[in-house]
């Protein structure tokens, strides 16, 4: 029996493979006569009809098998997920299926508002819980919206976190399927959760309740009232009120739900009284009896009628099995509200604080310091640098999700042909990296008109040469763009690098980075038209936040690079002082060890650890890559000679028109980008720095090329196809032969 749609009457013939875990649980509750909004289930067979009808199966296969899933970074999986989900949204539901869905819904629910929920077959059965990993939609009405939300639930099978979680559980990702539950939307005045057995005290039932709908409670946005009830005596043992009851979730006027402030009348009183607590406890225990296991129940109370939204055994529902990383995968997605808070914190507080710190450090003169003072200064800087690095991970990195959230919303509204069209709306901003590159260009122009200056640059000097304008530009490059940070450990190399860059920049054509303002304006208009009234988020705020997220993702490295540069300046001074005192010291010695040496204390031998990986990574001779696959991160085609950057010193050899092959580009190094004919990066992602800067300058770029730096050698002729993400390695012999011919 492979029907597309089932109601609870079919229960005896069904299993989770057909209608998923949630569908089965709801059918069972309904069949047991418990108060459940009557469910309909779209089976996994319906999912298959949609997927096969749109020939999506192999498109998904090609996305997810481009390289081993285990080798893909989370960012690459997010990219693949975005592409796959857009395929679902752009796919049409085969007519016969669409008719059957619509008539079944019409027959059962008429014109009622609906809830459309995911129901994965593996749910609650694969040693993990899928709770929260897939999408559900509340308060849906109108044929178009209903069908769209069904497609979105199917597509949510391919969210980044769902793919990763399945992979972790060892499930064969590409074979996953999804069922869908459709129920009438019950607009409860009070909602909550109930654990029939308190995990901390088996004799208690736990109830959490909020005014309005329970979405705020489930995702933690609204703090609930909490009751502990003795299971045997059915007596309330304790009631804890939240600090305040300021907000609640209610139905949105144009669909969905919204978080609103609660009127003070309602907010002043607890959502349940003693009688209703008693009622819901009794109902919960009845469900527990039915399943013969403690239950985690979601309920709502609408016009005095209790309604069960979901019930599952506590052991699975709480999802706390050892090694279960579902919580981590869930945390990959940041809510709009959370991102707005981060945005405010980063622009209003963290960035100014960080800049203040680096300016303060830059003002310190070490000449007058004793060795002990210098040691203290080094420790202070090392600590500060660590602190900011930790902030970078905890706040700056998550804020990059602003770009992703915007991408998801944009694709949802606009359904563009290109899943990454939204990036165009974020480009063309003044970023620190493009501003820095402008300064390099200014220096290059000054040098072009000054033979003496050019000669100095060729010798690798930049100090005390050229006129005031030139030195001012150099000074600004150093103080604002952490350009010294690149060559950590060797100030001479930094000067050589900068001078080499300036000479190379003289070869660049004039004008600023390519950008298409007309196209951007057009897309912006489309976005605002489509966003009109259709989203709970303010579309203008979202776009503004996404633009800042995009820019800060690049800028933040330069900001934090200034702190790193200041730590390095002190370390260099420390090394210098130690040498003048007759103490031998290696370039790689850490600031903390330098401090110890300055205090005359011994340090652990670290010489052996400095360059251990040197011998590895040499390109295997007999095995060579002819064609390597990555992600097409910036369009265009380029042919050129590869320059593989294995360490920073390699950068000073970089020549205009070469193809930059690198493990990972940091924004403090992206001044190479305008010189490169193309960029190939091992680290994958559409939104990584190399890709961002390549798009700004209109250079082809491929990211996520596994072992790029192993299989491509400096001097190899390489063809970079930025449309398909393919890099063809022609090798040295071929290019020599071609030149001869």
């Amino acid at each position, binding site marked *: 029996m492979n029907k597309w749609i089932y109601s609870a009457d079919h229960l005896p013939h069904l299993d989770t493979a057909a209608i998923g875990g949630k569908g089965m649980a709801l059918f069972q509750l309904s069949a047991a006569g418990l108060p459940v909004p009557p469910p309909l289930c779209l089976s996994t067979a319906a999912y298959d009809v949609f997927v096969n009808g749109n020939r999506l199966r192999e498109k998904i296969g090609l996305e997810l098998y481009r390289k081993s899933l285990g080798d893909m970074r989370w960012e690459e999986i997010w990219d693949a997920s975005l592409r796959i989900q857009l395929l679902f949204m752009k796919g049409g539901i085969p007519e016969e299926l669409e008719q059957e869905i619509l008539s079944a819904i019409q027959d059962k629910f008429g014109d009622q508002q609906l809830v459309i929920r995911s129901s994965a077959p593996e749910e609650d059965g694969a040693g993990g819980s899928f709770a929260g990993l897939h999408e559900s939609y509340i308060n849906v009405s109108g044929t178009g919206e209903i069908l769209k939300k069904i497609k979105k639930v199917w597509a949510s099978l391919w969210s980044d976190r769902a793919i990763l979680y399945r992979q972790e559980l060892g499930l064969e990702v590409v074979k996953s399927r999804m069922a869908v539950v459709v129920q009438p939307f019950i607009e409860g005045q009070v909602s909550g959760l109930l654990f029939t057995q308190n995990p901390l005290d088996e004799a208690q039932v736990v109830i959490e309740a909020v005014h309005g709908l329970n979405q705020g409670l489930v995702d933690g946005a609204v703090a609930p009232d909490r009751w502990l009830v003795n299971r045997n005596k059915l007596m309330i043992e304790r009631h804890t009120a939240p600090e305040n009851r300021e907000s609640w979730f209610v139905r949105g006027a144009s669909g969905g739900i919204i978080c609103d402030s609660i009127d003070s009348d309602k907010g002043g009183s607890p959502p349940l009284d003693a009688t209703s607590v008693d009622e819901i406890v009794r109902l919960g225990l009845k469900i527990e009896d039915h399943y013969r296991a403690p239950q985690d129940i979601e309920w709502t109370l609408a016009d005095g009628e209790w309604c069960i939204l979901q019930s599952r055994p506590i052991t699975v529902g709480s999802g706390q099995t050892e090694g279960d990383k579902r919580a981590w995968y869930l945390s990959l997605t940041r809510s709009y509200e959370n991102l707005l808070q981060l945005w405010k914190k980063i622009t209003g507080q963290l960035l100014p604080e960080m800049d203040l710190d680096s300016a303060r450090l830059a003002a310190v003169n070490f000449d007058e310091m004793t060795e002990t003072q210098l040691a203290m200064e080094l420790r202070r800087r090392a600590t500060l640098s660590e602190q900011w690095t930790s902030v970078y991970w905890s706040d700056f990195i998550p804020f990059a999700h602003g770009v992703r959230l915007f991408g998801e919303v944009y694709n949802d509204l606009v359904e563009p042909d290109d899943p990454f069209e939204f990036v165009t709306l974020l480009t063309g901003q003044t970023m620190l990296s493009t501003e820095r590159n402008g300064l390099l260009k200014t220096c290059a122009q000054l040098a072009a008109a000054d033979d003496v200056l050019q000669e100095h640059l060729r010798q690798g000097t930049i100090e005390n040469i050229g006129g005031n304008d030139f030195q001012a530009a150099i000074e600004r490059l150093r103080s604002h763009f952490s350009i010294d940070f690149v060559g950590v450990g060797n100030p001479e190399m930094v000067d050589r690098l900068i001078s080499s860059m300036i000479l190379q920049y003289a070869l660049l054509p004039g004008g600023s980075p390519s950008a298409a303002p007309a196209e951007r304006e057009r897309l912006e208009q489309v976005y605002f038209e489509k966003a009109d009234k259709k989203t709970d988020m303010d579309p203008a705020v979202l776009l503004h936040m996404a633009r800042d997220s995009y820019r800060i993702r690049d800028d933040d490295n330069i900001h934090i690079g200034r702190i790193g540069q200041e730590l390095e300046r002190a370390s260099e001074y420390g090394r210098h002082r130690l040498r003048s005192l007759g103490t031998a010291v290696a370039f790689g010695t850490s600031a903390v060890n330098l401090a110890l040496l300055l205090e005359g204390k011994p340090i652990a031998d670290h010489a052996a650890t400095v360059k251990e990986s040197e011998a590895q990574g040499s390109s295997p001779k*007999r*095995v060579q890559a002819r064609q390597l696959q990555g992600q097409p991160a910036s369009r265009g085609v380029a042919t050129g000679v590869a320059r593989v950057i294995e360490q920073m010193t390699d950068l000073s050899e970089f020549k205009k028109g070469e193809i930059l092959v690198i493990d990972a580009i940091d924004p403090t190094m992206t001044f190479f980008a305008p010189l490169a004919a193309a960029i190939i990066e091992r680290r994958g992602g559409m939104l990584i720095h190399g890709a961002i800067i390549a798009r700004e300058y209109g250079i082809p770029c491929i990211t996520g090329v596994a072992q790029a730096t192993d299989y491509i050698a400096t001097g190899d002729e390489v063809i970079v196809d930025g449309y398909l993400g393919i890099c063809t390695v022609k090798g040295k012999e071929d290019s020599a032969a071609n030149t001869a011919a």
Partner: protein
Amino acid sequence: MDKTELLMQEQINDLLSEQPLAVLSTQRNGQPYSSLMAFAHTRDLGVIVVATGKSTRKYQNIIRDARVSLLVDNRSNNEEDFHAAAALTVLGVAKNIESDERQKFETLYLERHPYLQKFLNAPTTSFIKIEVQCYLMVSRFQNVMEYRIGEQVDLFS
């Protein structure tokens, strides 16, 4: 031998061991000619042996130009082949099997294709070894890795 080379050898050995048939390409006056062939390979990947009737067009082609190419793949002829199938292109030179190595290669060939004994031993059949110079492994739709085992450095120039 480095890890990459060992891994590559293993992948090639696996594919050659799984598949009984290969497409052999020969040419005459620039006209390519492809034929489906039973084959067997040596573990060191240096040699692939095939057998063909002496009157066939492919045999006549090989006599004139010993350079050949083979294609071995594990497609299932379903659409998932695009992400899941691997294809191996082999470039090499066909040579006569010397009498002192005939026994060794015959055993190798008949282990894979016992039903071809009569065919192999017929006086009108030629048993040929292909000395492999290079393998090109295509996987995941667009990944192409090259494994050169012969001395000849550049086969494409």
